[in-house]
């Protein structure tokens, strides 16, 4: 009897230990997956940041004195945040030719953070090609904010786009992780953290707008 009891206990303890080890191992794996997602998100964020920086540095490319460099600019307020809806300007394409460039904010689903649904966006970049807008690049579809501010030389916001001498741009990219179920039983992609990037540029092409010479 003693022997049977001993063996049963040993089996039970062994099973518990195995289950615990399996649980720990799977958690370690999910940590590794999170790190990989983070690495990919960081690379994508910096790649989009590079495109934005290059594009906006060329804003007003080859404009003549008095000509408008920023052609369209509009913001919208969503979920209490001001987001830039459209930004259109004279810029440079990959071949160095002067071209109209348009950034447009598009809704790209939603994610859950601390039980609250957060809208996600994508910024699409279009180039004008013989009167038609041709898609020429886009951000990742996990942006939670995209904001462009047109500033004068003293860093104050402007009302007239032709008064702009500087462009400040900021965006936030959420790192969307695995599917999870929240307390209310809803499932969705949760996001772990936000990567934030922003820069203020003084494109030379904006200096000649509304030139009074």
């Amino acid at each position, binding site marked *: 009897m003693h022997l049977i009891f001993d063996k049963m206990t040993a089996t039970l*303890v062994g099973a518990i230990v195995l289950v615990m*080890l399996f649980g720990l191992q799977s958690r370690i794996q999910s940590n*590794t997956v999170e790190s990989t997602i983070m690495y990919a998100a960081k690379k994508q964020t910096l790649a989009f940041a590079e495109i934005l920086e290059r594009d906006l*540095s060329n804003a007003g490319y080859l404009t003549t004195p008095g000509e408008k460099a920023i052609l369209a600019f509009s913001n919208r307020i969503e979920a209490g945040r001001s987001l830039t809806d459209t930004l259109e300007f004279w810029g440079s394409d990959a071949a160095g030719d002067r071209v109209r460039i348009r950034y447009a904010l598009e809704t790209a689903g939603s994610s859950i953070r601390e039980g609250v649904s957060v809208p996600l966006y994508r910024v699409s970049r279009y180039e004008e090609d013989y009167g038609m807008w041709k898609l020429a690049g886009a951000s990742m579809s996990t942006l939670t904010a995209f904001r462009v501010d047109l500033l004068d030389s003293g860093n104050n916001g402007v009302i007239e786009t032709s008064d702009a001498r500087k462009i400040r741009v900021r965006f936030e990219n959420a790192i969307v992780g695995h599917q999870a179920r929240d307390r209310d039983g809803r499932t969705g992609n949760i996001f772990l953290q936000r*990567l934030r990037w922003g820069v*203020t540029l*003084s494109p030379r092409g904006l200096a000649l707008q509304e030139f009074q010479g």
Partner: protein
Amino acid sequence: MPQTLGAFLAIVAVMTFALNYHRSTLHAQHSVINSEYEVMGSAIAADVMNYIASKPFDARTADNTVSRSNQNTLLLTGPAEFGGCADFDLCNDIDDFDGLASQVRGFEVEPGVSIDFLVDVSVKYIDDAGNTATSPTWAKEVAVRIASADSVGGIPRLIRPIQLKRQFSPQW
């Protein structure tokens, strides 16, 4: 006796795994925080570099002593005379930023909340091959170095400083 030994070994195995798990979680968290800092730090580096790029190549090109019609590199500011401004906003040309005392620049994450970074700038002349030149040339290399201003338990939030380099030449 063998049962006791077996149970002890099982506990040791579980504890080792648990320790491994916690270390892995800590590492993953550090990596996530570091990545956030890296992206913000690179934004600060781009910002500072664009600010420096908005300044004239040299004091002598700004006052037209050296110009398209007088292309004499010997008249440019010598490497020994680099630096000399007390604050970012007081620097008049590219080489004035050299050796400036570490500047604190904040990246605003929420209204009123910002994360501080330390910015250091160094400027040098380079030759056509990209090596450091001891006398003035037509190219200056600016290196912007970003480090985190705060640390947790002695470990800086930005584990490795970010360095951004760019070369400038007079534009005429």
